[in-house]
């Protein structure tokens, strides 16, 4: 038995004995009270007590929060373990699904908060004494505690997910520099996809057992782009990206200092401390989550810009090819013109010679014309 550490045999349940006693008493009464039936059982009304409004409302809130908890727990395994399942091809939970779960949970939590607040207004209805009001106060507080515990579940999940994203970004950020260095040395002209994905390939070469969860979520996380053309462009893009990566990091660092000692940014380099953030309040967690979302957006927009620039550079190169062709044509034409001119000049000078030898008066005229034309 799972609960066998504590002795499961403690005390004696006398309920059966009690019920048996009640039954015997009833029988005895029936025998005795067969004569005196008048003040019999009809006098005691069935105690159907309608529970007070407060109680029904409180029960409702509890049911609502429990639904939220069930919902969270159902998806929790998938939510957290999705990265590992991806390897085995199991039920992967895409980011959009996770976002959907997050927004659902948020709505639920807000709904519960609303209900609890409405309960607060009902706290003092129909209060029949000090003990009653104290009881209601405690009920109210315990509802808040329950909601807090369930909301903790939600924020834990979220924190784990965001931590993963941040870790991924962090490790992938380190890659562009490394890749550039390697390119310089080996001069490889890979026609591969976006920087993040190639870096995943490199990572398996560079650092040995990288956790699988880093590899594949990269595929998941970054949108795949069109294959770049030519190593030259790739290098250009990489250089761009590497620099954007470092500027990102600087920007993150600066934000960290601006945040006044916030743990996340200061500890981007040592993500181990992130795991100790279970003591952060929910408010802080949501703040961090928002900040991380913003950073994520920022990075995504930068990736888009980079791709645009890539396209434009390709166009420019095409145009330049055209331009060089045209220039070559022009050169040829110029050359033919010059040849033609040279021939013409020669012809004219020959003609000049011939005319000189023929007749004097016309000579002078022709000479003049030829001289003029030369």
């Amino acid at each position, binding site marked *: 038995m799972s609960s066998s550490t504590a002795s*499961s045999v403690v005390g004696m349940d006398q309920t059966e004995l009690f019920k048996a006693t009640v039954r015997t008493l009833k029988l005895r009464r029936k025998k005795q009270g067969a004569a005196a039936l008048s003040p019999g059982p009809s006098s005691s009304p069935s105690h159907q007590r309608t529970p007070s409004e407060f109680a029904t409302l409180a029960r409702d809130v509890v049911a609502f929060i429990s639904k939220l908890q069930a919902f969270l727990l159902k998806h929790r395994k998938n939510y957290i373990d999705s990265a590992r399942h991806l390897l085995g091809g199991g039920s992967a939970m895409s980011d959009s699904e996770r976002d959907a779960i997050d927004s659902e949970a948020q709505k639920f939590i807000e709904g519960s908060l609303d209900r609890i607040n409405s309960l607060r207004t009902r706290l003092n209805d129909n209060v029949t004494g000090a*003990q009653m009001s104290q009881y209601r106060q405690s009920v109210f507080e315990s509802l808040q505690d329950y909601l807090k515990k369930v909301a903790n579940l939600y924020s834990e999940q979220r924190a784990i997910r965001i931590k993963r994203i941040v870790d991924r970004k962090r490790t992938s950020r380190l890659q562009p520099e490394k890749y550039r260095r390697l390119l310089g040395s080996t001069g490889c002209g890979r026609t591969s996809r976006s920087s993040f994905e190639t870096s995943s390939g490199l990572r398996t070469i560079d650092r040995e057992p990288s956790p699988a969860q880093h590899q594949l979520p990269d595929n998941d996380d970054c949108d795949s782009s069109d294959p770049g053309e030519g190593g030259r462009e790739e290098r250009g893009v990489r250089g761009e990206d590497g620099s954007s990566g470092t500027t990102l990091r600087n920007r993150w660092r600066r934000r960290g200092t601006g945040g006044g000692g916030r743990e996340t940014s200061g500890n981007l380099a040592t993500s181990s401390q992130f795991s100790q953030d279970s003591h952060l309040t929910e408010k802080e967690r949501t703040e961090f989550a928002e900040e991380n979302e913003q950073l994520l957006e920022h990075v995504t927009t930068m990736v888009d810009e980079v791709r645009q620039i890539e396209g434009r550079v390709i166009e420019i190169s095409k145009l330049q090819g055209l331009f060089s062709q045209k220039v070559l044509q022009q050169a040829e034409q110029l050359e033919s013109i010059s040849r033609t001119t040279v021939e013409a000049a020669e012809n004219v000078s020959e003609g000049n010679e011939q005319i000189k030898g023929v007749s004097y008066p016309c000579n002078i005229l022709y000479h003049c014309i030829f001289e003029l034309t030369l």
Partner: protein
Amino acid sequence: MATSGPPTSYQNVLRDKQIAALKRMLNLNQPTPRGSVAASEPVWKVLIYDKFGSDIISPLLSVRELRDLGVTLHLQVDAGREQISDAVAVYFLMPTAANVARICQDCRAQLYDKYYLNFVTAIPRPLLEEVAKASLEADCVPQIGKVYDQYLNFISLEDDFFVLRNQMLGEVSYYALNRPDASDEEIQRICDSIVECLFSVFVTSGTVPIIRCPRGNAAEMVAQALDKKLRDNVRDPRNSMFTGDSTAIAQLSFSRPLLVILDRNVDLATPLHHTWTYQALVHDMLNLDLNRVTLLTADDEPPPSPTSSPQQRTYDLLHSDRFWEQHRGSPFPAMADAVQAEVDRYKTSEEEMKSLKSAMGVDDDESEDSDLLTDKTSKLGSAIKSLPELMEKKKSIDMHTNIATALLEQIKERKLDVFFEMEDRMISKSSLDKTVLDMISDTAAGTPEDKMRLFIIYYILSPDIAEADVVQYTSALEAVGANTAPLTYLGHWK
């Protein structure tokens, strides 16, 4: 009258078992779910107890823990109680006639929605019938959820220390047992109640002990009665407490605990001996009761905590307080040094925090020196995390400092160290520097009780004292105002 309890092996801690039983009771005797992640739905209960029940619960569960278990209100059974018709009521009482009458009254008045009756020890048949009758009359039988005999009739003060009761101690004291005019029935009654409590101990721990006792006195009576009760219970397979899952049976066969029952007469000197260790001093001087101490503070102290009246401060000396666990057996000087060391350590950590605070303020503009800043931020982060711990430590240090100061005052006033030393020497049969007579006539030292204690120890330990000497001592004692009645008893006793 505390007897040696079961050994504290890895799972056998009596206190934990008692806590588990209480929690189970508060969970309306439903098995507690073992899900670690999920929070369970709160069920709101009102806990109603009598003095016995409150003594049992108060060293084990704090109000905070009760809240977590869903107890919204806790009330005395005798207090005026109002109708709270949505609540489930959990009663935890001794099965006395008065309590049962009160329960019946509640049923008739329809105070609560459901009633869960838990009796500290087995409810006798007639009283059960009383309850049945009353509930039938009030027609609230379906509302009585459960009737349970909890068999929790003992108070666990620490992991390896329990006492049998804290109420009405006069009824079961040594005096009651041993006074010359005690009738047989009274003695029998006292033995029965002791047997009952011990039986609860063994039911809770789930083991049947091997019982050993000396012959010829009250201890033998208790031992025999307990033995009989245990045998009867084990023999009856239907109702036995001790058949359960396999681990309980394994405990039966491999490691039955040894129960040694001794009569106090074996060693009268020790309870009278003046003490020198921390916990014993607190118990002696400051009335440590159920792990709680109340100090009367002097006028010039800072304003007290909200829970105490202006001149009193109540402290709980708990299992979870690390300092207490470490030093409760240490002699007073060692304990005082330890408190001082703790205070110093706390001061240094406070200094660190302060310096960190100022450093953070200065370096806010440095954005380039990110490594240094990361360092500082992480330091600040860890400082923030350790803040609640530091607060706890401070509270505990304050408490121990106050207690130590109070003890010191008393010791100085009553010259208890001298008493202790003398008694120690007497017990170890080495020579004394002051004679007992000097001590007794020394008006600056100690209350008359202290002197009485000293003399009694002396009397007990020295087998051959001349009559004349005794008379001399008696007159000296009377001169300082001590009550010499105990001496007559001791005369008989010897």
